[in-house]
């Protein structure tokens, strides 16, 4: 597949199939269509990634209007990598979704669920590949609006307030972003990211650009749930339908981090703001706070989804910590953790979804005895948990290794110590669940708990398997992350 139109098809395909799903009356045909489409998108994303790895950055002018007059797709390594992560997780969670959705969402709403899912996917993919600041906003809103709906489709009424809070915070974030873009546009006259990058250094010293940077950073930080702008996230993840949690946890915050990378390094890279304006230091402090505060809070959660949500906040901290170092190794640590965390959290939330399906609860107590009753699911949970801790032979180890290496390279050994200490907290909260699963007997009233259906177990174990495989053989993924980091710093291939 070497058609030049792959990048745009990858995004437009799910976007165009969403209306078809919307007019369907039943879940099954909608699911089938969505399944075909997401997997095709995944295949296209992989093809694009290969193309980018082989031939370098792809530039696709939409409507054949050359940038900066028209909108272009500009896909470099990191963008293609993001697209693969997003579409891959999308494809897997869609395969997983059928039984889970059949269990959690009423029959009339199922086609609408798949519509929203496809839109969310299209939005996130669009963000990953676009080269235009305003187009990015539009697709950000597509993905955000559909996520709000996806979250509120859950049966728990707290999902509604969670979605509402997410909507308010998300819209504030988007508005901040748009203020930032406006200020940038005002000073440079362009919206194209590459063009901005070329024109920013001229005006980098002005107060307007400085404020623009501030607004962009705060706005995106809201979306990526950086401490202390994270308050929307725990409940949104905890009460959303299982599949939605899987998908959003593995993709939405990741894409936001990607946008932050784009702004800080692609647009402001030549102006070197991360060093000049202490943004790096601020991000680093917030990242460290996130790592410790969120991990500590996670320890005291009784709802496993909430527990994992707080763990996600801590993991976002790791990613931002890597980014804030602004060295090649630091950024590649952030990027590789994007990928790794998507895999492991995907597996973990899928396991929790299986548990919810069989026991009707995601409280820690509900896990009692599941080590025996649902051995396959719990084994996947353990693999994911070990990965969160960072045990070798899991992807978490690779991330941690790279991050600590980055810290030591800059001579910041206290930082390395803090990273290690915070991962001890992960042992505590992961083991809290594992112990209950394996050491407490199955309550008698749950005597009929069975293993989850195959269609859910397979995607879950695919991710669990990935988190082992890429933990042993990380040369490829880390290689991409390194090249991407080098490219972001302006000295890549």
């Amino acid at each position, binding site marked *: 597949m070497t058609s030049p*139109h792959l990048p*745009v*098809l990858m995004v*437009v395909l799910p*976007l*165009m199939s*969403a*209306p*078809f799903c*919307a*007019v369907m009356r039943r879940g099954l045909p909608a699911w089938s269509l969505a399944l075909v489409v997401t997997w095709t998108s995944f295949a296209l994303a992989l093809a694009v990634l290969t193309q980018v790895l082989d031939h370098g950055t792809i530039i*696709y*002018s*939409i*409507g*054949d*209007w050359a940038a*900066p*007059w*028209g*909108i272009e797709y500009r896909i470099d390594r990191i963008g293609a990598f993001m697209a693969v992560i997003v579409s891959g997780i999308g494809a897997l969670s869609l395969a997983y979704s059928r039984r889970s959705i059949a269990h959690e969402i009423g029959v*009339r*709403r199922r086609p*609408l*669920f798949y*519509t*929203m899912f496809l*839109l969310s996917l*299209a939005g996130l993919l669009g963000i990953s590949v676009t080269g235009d600041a*305003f*187009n990015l906003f*539009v*697709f950000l*809103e*597509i993905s955000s*609006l*559909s996520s709000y*709906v996806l979250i*509120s*489709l859950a049966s728990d009424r707290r999902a509604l307030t969670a979605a509402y809070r997410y909507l308010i915070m998300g819209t504030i974030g988007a508005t901040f972003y748009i*203020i930032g873009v406006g*200020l940038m*546009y*005002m*000073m*440079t*006259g*362009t*919206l194209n990211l590459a*063009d901005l990058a070329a*024109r920013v250094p001229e005006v980098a010293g*002005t*107060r*307007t*650009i*400085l*404020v*623009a940077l*501030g*607004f962009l950073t705060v706005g995106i930080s809201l979306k990526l749930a950086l401490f202390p702008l994270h308050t929307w996230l725990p409940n949104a993840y905890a009460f959303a339908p299982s599949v939605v949690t899987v998908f959003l946890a593995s993709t939405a915050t990741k894409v936001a981090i990607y946008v932050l990378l784009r702004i800080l390094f692609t647009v402001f890279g030549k102006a070197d703001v991360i060093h000049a304006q202490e943004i790096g230091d601020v991000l680093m402090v917030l990242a460290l706070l996130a790592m410790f505060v969120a991990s500590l809070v996670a320890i005291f959660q009784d709802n496993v989804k909430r527990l994992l949500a707080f763990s996600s906040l801590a993991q976002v901290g790791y990613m931002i910590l890597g980014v804030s170092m602004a060295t090649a190794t630091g950024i590649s640590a952030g990027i590789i953790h994007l990928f790794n965390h998507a895999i492991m959290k995907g597996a973990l939330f899928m396991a929790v979804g299986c548990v919810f399906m069989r026991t009707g609860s995601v409280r820690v107590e509900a896990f009692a005895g599941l080590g025996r009753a649902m051995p396959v699911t719990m084994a996947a949970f353990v693999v994911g948990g070990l990965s969160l801790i960072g045990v070798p032979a899991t992807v978490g180890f690779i991330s941690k290794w790279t991050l600590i290496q980055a810290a030591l390279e800059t001579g910041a050994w206290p930082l390395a110590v803090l990273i290690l200490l915070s991962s001890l907290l992960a042992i505590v909260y992961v083991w809290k669940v594992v112990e209950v699963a394996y050491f407490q007997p199955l309550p008698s009233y749950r005597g009929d708990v069975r293993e989850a259906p195959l269609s859910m177990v397979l995607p879950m174990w695919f991710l669990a398997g990935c988190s082992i495989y890429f933990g042993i053989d990380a040369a490829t993924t880390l290689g991409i992350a390194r090249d991407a980091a080098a490219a972001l710093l302006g000295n890549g291939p």
Partner: protein
Amino acid sequence: MTVIGIGLIRMRNLFAVVMLSGIYSLLAAFLYVIMDAVDVAFTEAAVGAGIATVLMLATLALTGTQEKPSRHTNLLSIAIVTVTGAALVYGTLDMPEYGDPDAPIHHHVVPRYMNDSAHEVGPPNVVTSVLASYRGFDTLGEVTVIFTAAVGVIALIGRIRRRRSLNHDARLNERWADTMSSKPVLRVLTKLIIPLIMLFALYVQFHGDYGPGGGFQAGVIFASALILYGLIFGIDTARRAVPEWMTRLGLALGVLMYAGTGVAGLVMGGNFLNYSVLAHDHLHGQHWGIFTIELGVGITVAAAMVTIFFTFARLLPVDPNDEKRS
């Protein structure tokens, strides 16, 4: 406008708040006209002052109009807002002055739109050229956003309280019938006005190339005709005229028309959303492309507005007792 802004903060009567916010939008629209943004003004008036206000009123009818006094102090919020505001003002200090023709935005990118769009794209309305062609992909995104919102609203409140709805709808109609039979003049007037509004919508739809207007505004106007019909003759009657499947189909159709045009460009040998390749010469191609996508926009927007409004309206309680019971 500032006065309204401050008033909004202080006021506890939500009904007044919503009305003020509508007025605020109208004022903004007025400002847009002053600042030469006629298309935007058109849209803001129809959407911000019109649709959004109606939706808010509908919501208020469902949730109650009096805000309860808040107990906690808002020092933190004040601090955040002050800091943000101060940052923005600080940022303005290095900006080009308002109306300054030498500002960078007028000299990069835009000159090509002003100078070349006439022979590259065609329509004298540059906003349309940029919207539909140069940055057509954004507009596709925009249509998708409105599609998302409409489907989202169906997913969220499309089917709640279905148990009561039969009885509910019947009573709603009774009430409308009572009210309306006493106002025959209004009914007749409406029947006369609605076709006119629709004609106007069609005019706006197809006139977008030359003056302010286009698919989006036309869609909103078209929808408001149907909404008016619903308000005067009862939601149920309107729903019979425009059943749900039709709006839902419209929603999907518009998006597909737009994206389909893009794909057509791709099939004909251009890039996605390249209209130039659609006909024998590029100006005709652009013309047809813009025509189709604007139509798509119009259909989806009209369908979305109608869907959103009717979905909200279906929930409206018949009388205060009903509201208390919920």
